[in-house]
């Protein structure tokens, strides 16, 4: 009887232990299964998928999480590249800088920093860093120089020497670059002072000078008619009406001078806008002649 009871007691203890063991194993496994999607490895592969899908913001979040547990140059580079592509240039530059020393991607990171500054349109710092040894790289010096030359098309600094600028580009693109260079150097603009003076001499002439032919002729007719009405009224002793039309004529004359100067400014703004657009489209089409890195798209 006692033996039977002891056996039963042992069996109960055994079952209790087994039960605890199985529950522990199953819980750990279940937790592991749930964690699988968020493990560093999964985050990295999901981040890469998002990067290829051009969902750079979400990709950057996955890379950031991955880098909390693992240090990987390629991932940090892709994180920087993600920031660059979504326009967070300062974060991109800082992350590229963190890859400058003792990594396999030091040269690519330096080019990345210059790309960040270029797309941020921070050309002053771009040119400043280009002269500092800490930031330059032998491997991509030609690409950085070319990017520097391109930057002159986007700011108001005087253009560098033409022969050096042209030589930075391949023969295939040199004709386009030359065209843009001369368009930038000698833009087809109209002088607002000239336009105003022309309109002061002959009403409407300033507008015709800026290409507004219809407006110019209308101004000439309107001012001429008002002057005629004024003179005619004075001649017939209608002094009040004479002064009234003289006032209108003066307003039309003055307005026409001001309008001609404004028209020249509008014309110049249009020329600049079209030039900027054309240049931007051209360089965008050629990806700013920057090298592509295969490891980024893997």
């Amino acid at each position, binding site marked *: 009887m006692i033996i039977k009871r002891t056996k039963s007691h042992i069996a109960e203890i055994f079952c209790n232990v*087994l039960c605890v063991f199985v529950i522990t194993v199953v819980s750990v496994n279940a937790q592991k*299964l749930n964690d699988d*999607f968020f493990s560093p490895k999964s985050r990295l592969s*999901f981040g890469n998928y998002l990067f290829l899908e051009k969902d750079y913001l*979400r990709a950057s979040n996955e890379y950031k999480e991955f880098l909390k547990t693992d240090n990987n140059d390629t991932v940090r580079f892709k994180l920087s590249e993600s920031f660059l592509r979504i326009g967070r240039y300062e974060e991109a530059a800082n992350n590229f800088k963190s890859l400058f020393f003792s990594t396999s991607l030091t040269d690519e990171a330096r080019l990345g920093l210059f790309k960040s500054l270029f797309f941020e349109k921070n050309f002053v710092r771009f040119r400043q860093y280009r002269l500092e040894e800490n930031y330059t790289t032998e491997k991509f010096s030609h690409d950085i120089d070319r990017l520097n030359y391109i930057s002159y098309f986007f700011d108001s600094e005087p253009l560098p020497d033409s022969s050096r600028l042209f030589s930075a580009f391949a023969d295939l693109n040199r004709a386009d670059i030359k065209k843009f260079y001369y368009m930038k150097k000698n833009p087809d603009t109209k002088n607002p002072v000239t336009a105003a003076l022309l309109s002061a001499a002959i009403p409407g002439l300033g507008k015709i000078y800026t290409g507004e032919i219809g407006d110019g002729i209308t101004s000439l007719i309107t001012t001429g008619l008002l002057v005629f009405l004024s003179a005619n009224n004075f001649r017939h002793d209608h002094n009040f009406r004479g002064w009234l039309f003289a006032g209108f004529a003066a307003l039309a004359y003055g307005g026409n001078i001001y309008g001609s100067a404004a028209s020249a400014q509008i014309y110049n703004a249009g020329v600049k806008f079209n030039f900027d657009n054309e240049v931007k489209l051209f360089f965008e089409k050629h990806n700013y002649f920057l090298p592509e890195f295969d490891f980024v798209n893997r």
Partner: protein
Amino acid sequence: MKKLFYKYFLLIEIFVVSSLFPQDRLSIQFDYANKLFQTSQYFDAITEYKRLLFFDEAKKYSYKAYFQIGKCYKAGAKFDEAIKYFSTASINAANENEKLSVYFEIVRTNISRRTTSRALQILDEIEKENTNTFIRDSINYWRGWTYIFADDWKNAADAFSKIKSDHELKKLCEQVEKEKVSVTFTKAISYFLPGAGEVYSGNILSGSITFGWNLLFGYLTINSFAEERIFDGMVIGSLGWLRFYRGNIQSAEESAKQKNIAIANKILKYLQYEYKGAKP
């Protein structure tokens, strides 16, 4: 002894089964993403739905995840993206019901985006392929909403009346249609009596002032001609009277349009905050 063993075995089995099978990791992920969606964390919800899609190799959740991503984008007013994902969901739909759900969501997104002609086109296509009464009611319901957003209250009322002759929304649309003023009529009466159009559309003070200006300049012009001051008459008539007369017609048109917008906005506000039924 045996009894004890079976007891523990059953306990362990229940635990193992409940831990592993009813909720596999994909369904846990789907629930997690849904929770984010329900708490309006749409950016994070999209990330989690995309994670689910990435790890769902068997494409078990493709339809649901794409559908939910579309809803997230719609909730964030990114309608173009929403339609893109709804369209992908429709490709992954397993049956006609799922497809229909997607099409109605696309219609609702188009209504919100105010591309109402596209919404109507899709509804027509659904109607061609479905004769079921319940579906027809849904089609008419969303057609009604489409017309509301297209500011076509008469057709909206007609669409709702096809569901039920005393449909709540039908009554609302008829009320709007009744309260709205005719822009053409408002303009037309302003040609005959300056200021009348503005008075008709509720701007009594502005209409009276318009009438006063026209009266004054009309008198000055006619008086000038009557006194044979032809030049004065022409100048006052063209620079004064004509300016106020044309202004009166433009003001009448604007006034009628503003009144109609105010009436429509009042009802739209009611629909947005008070109406309990489904909305785009």
